[in-house]
């Protein structure tokens, strides 16, 4: 009994690792959209916004401290939002080509296909996150918590990437359109801008402030900012992790449901 259960788990792990490795190999062949693209907007914003909008800190009521130091931990989180969901392309392509049906005939449950890719989705954001942090420190970023602070930021970005990809998966499964990441790209902009990633709530007009307050990206950004500029183990980090866990459950439920109804319908 116990031995068969453990081989079951081993088989599951092996299947996940196969899906992960297939996705990683595909990304290696086409590094642009997987590794380079997610970092590009954040890198551009780092250079441009620190220069152009520095004086936002002179606005009456601004409470964010030095603006460059404020911006960097926010902008790095955007790596997960602008350029997200690249792996949903292969989900759509596999469903459309019938390759998914072939995979379904194998013992691992279909969601293995999603989880394996999601794991890769988290890992692929690492190079971009590191690049943005490195450039950010050149452009006035600060870090009071050493490696632990950096590690916390990286974990937050990767988890947000996983949470946000669920939306892409749900859409990709329904439309079977490999262009999904391209189509949904504009969605990342309001999520990024209408959060505390770029400026504190205090300097936003009321409509923007209200939206930013309820934007799930805001607690993640606040935790990232806390990890670099405040106390590492703040309650903001706990809130962020709780929010991320919640969002992951919701978006994955959407994706799994889409997959389930697709498979049931086919």
């Amino acid at each position, binding site marked *: 009994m116990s031995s068969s259960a453990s081989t079951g788990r081993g088989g599951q792990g092996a299947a996940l690792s196969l899906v992960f490795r297939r996705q990683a190999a595909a990304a290696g062949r086409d590094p642009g959209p997987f590794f380079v693209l997610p970092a590009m907007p954040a890198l*551009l914003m780092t250079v441009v916004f620190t220069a152009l909008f520095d004086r936002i800190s002179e606005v009456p009521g601004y409470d964010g401290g030095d603006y460059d130091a404020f911006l960097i931990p926010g902008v790095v989180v955007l790596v997960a939002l602008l350029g997200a969901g690249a792996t949903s392309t292969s989900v759509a392509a596999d469903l459309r080509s019938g390759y998914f049906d072939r995979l379904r005939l194998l013992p691992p449950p279909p969601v293995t296909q999603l989880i394996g890719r999601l794991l890769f989705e988290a890992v692929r954001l690492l190079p971009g996150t590191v690049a943005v942090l490195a450039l950010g420190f050149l452009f006035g970023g600060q870090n009071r918590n050493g490696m632990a602070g950096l590690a916390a930021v990286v974990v937050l970005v990767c988890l947000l990437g996983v949470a946000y990809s669920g939306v892409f998966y749900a859409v990709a499964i329904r439309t079977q359109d490999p262009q999904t990441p391209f189509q949904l790209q*504009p969605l990342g902009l309001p999520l990024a801008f209408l959060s505390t990633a770029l*400026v504190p709530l205090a300097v936003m007009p009321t409509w923007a402030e209200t939206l930013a307050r309820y934007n799930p990206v805001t607690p993640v950004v606040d935790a990232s900012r806390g990890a670099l500029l405040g106390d590492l183990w703040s309650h903001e980090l706990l809130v962020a992790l709780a929010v991320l866990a919640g969002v992951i459950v919701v978006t994955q439920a959407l994706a799994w449901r889409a997959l389930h109804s697709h498979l049931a319908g086919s």
Partner: protein
Amino acid sequence: MPAPRRFVRDMGLVFTRTAKEAIGNAGLAFVAPTLLAVFLIVLFQGVYGKIADTTGWPADQFIDWVAPGGVLLSVFVGAGYTAGGLLRDAESGYLDRIRLLPANPAAVLAGKVAFEAARAVVPATGVLLVALALGADNRNGIPGALGVVAIAVALSVAWNGIFYLSALATRNHAAVLGLQPLFMPVIMFSTFWVPARFMPGWYEAAATWNPFTPTLDAARSILLGTADWGALGVGLSALAALAVVTYGLAGRHYATATTAD
């Protein structure tokens, strides 16, 4: 029929066909560039709008400063539409079909570019109206508004030259699409969002030498007060130079493509 009249007539036929196709595809041709430009302006207004409350801001509000840029932004975010169409025609063999007709191939290209110019009017006007509704200044009434839209048309012709060149030189849709984000550094390193005196020195230098800046400054001067004819002259010259270079090279590739290969 005399050759010049024939040229204009053929151009008109291609213009009409391209226009009909675009109207059938209005979402991509007209609505998307309008909405995307409005969307970006509104987002930046929501995030950085209050920078206008700091001392030294040259206008009353943030929207006064960015509205003219927003109008031109609609040209940038919608660029490459007819160049992509030309590429599709080349791939599908439709261009071959037209090549076999006695029409001048240059009239075919000119008809498409003419439509690209006309298309710019719709998003540019749309963004301008939204900006005015958001409270942007327009001190020169309807003539001023028409002037800014005309600048957008000129920018559209010149900027799309890059897309025609890329389409005809590479014959690759991905290469044409890949040029889309090229406008980002162009607007970011200009006076699009904030005046030059708000920038650090190196950035101000980049913005001053950016060939797009005079065009932008000219459009802004028309909306905010007296037209800056100097900036307008420099801006339009820069656009003319871009157009000459890109269409000159694109024309060569096109000539090769429309004679036997």
